[in-house]
């Protein structure tokens, strides 16, 4: 059992108030708060270890490099990566996916090829493929979702008949909380020879991920959604794929020898890490992983699922509330609408009660079109949330309805 109150005490920001109320932070799918241990790790890095990595011939620079590479090994162990050199540090999921599209995709996709995405993909796992397909004259095939917000497996199968070169999908939907059957989707995609890119932005923070067991080819994640610093994240890949990929960004660190008119490149993962990296981010991310593993990913998943279940039950009691997404197994993300009270108005009213939720399209406009809504309100939970937060959400929502004079039809 997870002790949410004990977790909450570890987060300085959550001790504060908002508009005179206990801060109820329910926008964890957007970003998470940071525990003291992560803040300490970042500060400690700058106080004791800061120097540029992979260059200096002095003790401080060696220690900074060791801290950076230790963080890489920490990420590799956390996700059971194939090898530490299969972990490329990025600014986050978005950059990781752009790296795959820009380096692997640009080198391997040909005119007439197909890339498969899903209707529940975040714009960050859609727009990079749109750009690539437009450049290459390739087709982009979007797999439909079922009415209750799961990937339509029949349509997924049909899409695979086109023998796509690349298949991309989210492990967990950021808008609906759907937990997709990733291993099964990957097995199917591999059967037609596709390379599989998994958007792990919403899965990595909330459930135990083993990339080797999944057997995906590329896995992207963001540090800031899992208690780590903003601007930290990683692309985890099969090393053999990284070895043969052309570089993504050019610059220092990613080279081996530079001549007037050409260069040879560094070994992986450094080939993909041009310029001075976000060492503070990597160190902070490693501290976040330590924290998450102390609490336990299975306990976190169980806790969030319980909160989501309670929230869906509680919100469904309010006349006029519609909850989107699957009713069964799902992550701690609850998207809803409330009569004709627009999600933005809901968010403004809840904010006055110290409750932070997201309102809008959640960077999933194609999904919103399929749900036939312009926007939803979204509450997303993490390890420091509890049933008191769920109750605060429901109470404030009823207040919003009253303020709007909303009368259920």
């Amino acid at each position, binding site marked *: 059992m997870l002790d949410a109150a004990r977790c909450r005490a570890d987060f300085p920001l959550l001790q504060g108030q908002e*508009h*005179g109320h206990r801060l109820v932070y329910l926008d964890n799918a957007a970003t998470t708060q940071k525990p003291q241990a992560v803040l300490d790790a970042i500060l400690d890095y700058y106080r004791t270890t800061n120097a540029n990595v992979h260059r200096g011939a002095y003790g401080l620079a060696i220690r900074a490099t060791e801290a950076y590479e230790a963080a890489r090994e920490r990420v590799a162990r956390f996700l059971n990566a194939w090898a530490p050199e299969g972990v490329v540090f990025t600014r986050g999921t978005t950059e990781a996916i752009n790296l795959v599209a820009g380096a692997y995709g640009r080198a391997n996709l040909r005119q007439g090829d197909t890339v498969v995405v899903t209707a529940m993909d975040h714009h960050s796992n859609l727009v990079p493929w749109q750009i690539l397909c437009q450049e290459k004259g390739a087709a982009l095939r979007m797999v439909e979702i079922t009415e209750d917000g799961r990937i339509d497996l029949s349509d997924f199968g049909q899409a695979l008949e086109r023998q796509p070169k690349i298949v991309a999908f989210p492990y967990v939907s950021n808008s609906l909380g759907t937990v997709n059957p990733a291993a099964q989707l990957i097995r199917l995609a591999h059967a037609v020879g596709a390379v599989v890119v998994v958007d792990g932005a919403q899965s990595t923070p909330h459930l135990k991920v083993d990339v080797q067991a999944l057997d995906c080819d590329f896995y992207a994640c963001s540090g800031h959604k899992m208690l780590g610093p903003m601007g930290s994240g990683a692309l985890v890949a099969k090393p053999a794929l990284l070895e043969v990929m052309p570089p993504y960004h050019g610059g220092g660190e990613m080279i081996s020898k530079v001549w007037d008119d050409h260069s040879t490149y560094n070994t992986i993962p450094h080939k993909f890490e041009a310029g001075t990296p976000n060492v503070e981010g990597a160190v902070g991310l490693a501290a976040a992983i330590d924290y998450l593993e102390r609490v336990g990913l299975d306990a976190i998943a169980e806790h969030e699922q319980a909160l989501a279940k309670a929230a869906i039950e509680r919100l469904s009691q309010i006349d006029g509330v519609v909850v989107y997404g699957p009713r069964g197994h799902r992550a701690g993300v609850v998207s809803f609408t409330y009569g*004709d*009270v*627009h*999600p*933005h*108005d809901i968010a*403004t*009213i809840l904010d*006055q*009660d110290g409750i932070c939720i997201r*309102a*809008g*399209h959640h960077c999933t*406009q194609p999904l*919103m079109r399929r749900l036939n809504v*312009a*926007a939803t309100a979204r509450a997303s939970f993490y390890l420091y949330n509890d049933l008191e937060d769920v109750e605060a959400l429901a109470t404030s929502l009823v207040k919003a309805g009253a*303020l*709007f*004079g909303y009368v259920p039809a």
Partner: protein
Amino acid sequence: MDTSPPEPKLSALYQELILDHYRRPRNKGTLEHPTYAVSLNNPLCGDEIELQLLVEDAVIRDVRFVGRGCSISQASASMMTHLLKEKSVPQALTLAGRMSAMMQGDDAAAKDKALGDLRALAGVARFPVRIKCALLPWNALTDAFKSRA
């Protein structure tokens, strides 16, 4: 720091008049032969508006809008279209300026009778993230005059 109690602020934001325009928008629809038309959306939140104007001899004879969005953006569009009829283009642009001033917290603008029902939106100025909702139809208006239909 803002120490006023939350309740009065919210009721100042969501006045009866605003909710009335939200639920019963005036001039919602399209024109058969608009002289100006523009679509605008707020990429952050997905609010959308399509504004159409019939302008003759530099006077706005008719104006309609379609769109979807929050109470603030939709009420603002409804109130704006109501106000613009039979106004000259320069007068309309002056009103757009007045509206922007009110959103920046200008008290004189908030009391300006020329803004009509829109004065009910003065409270939005205290909710900075919502100002762009109130200004969405007005930005569509100024954009419209930049491009003929």
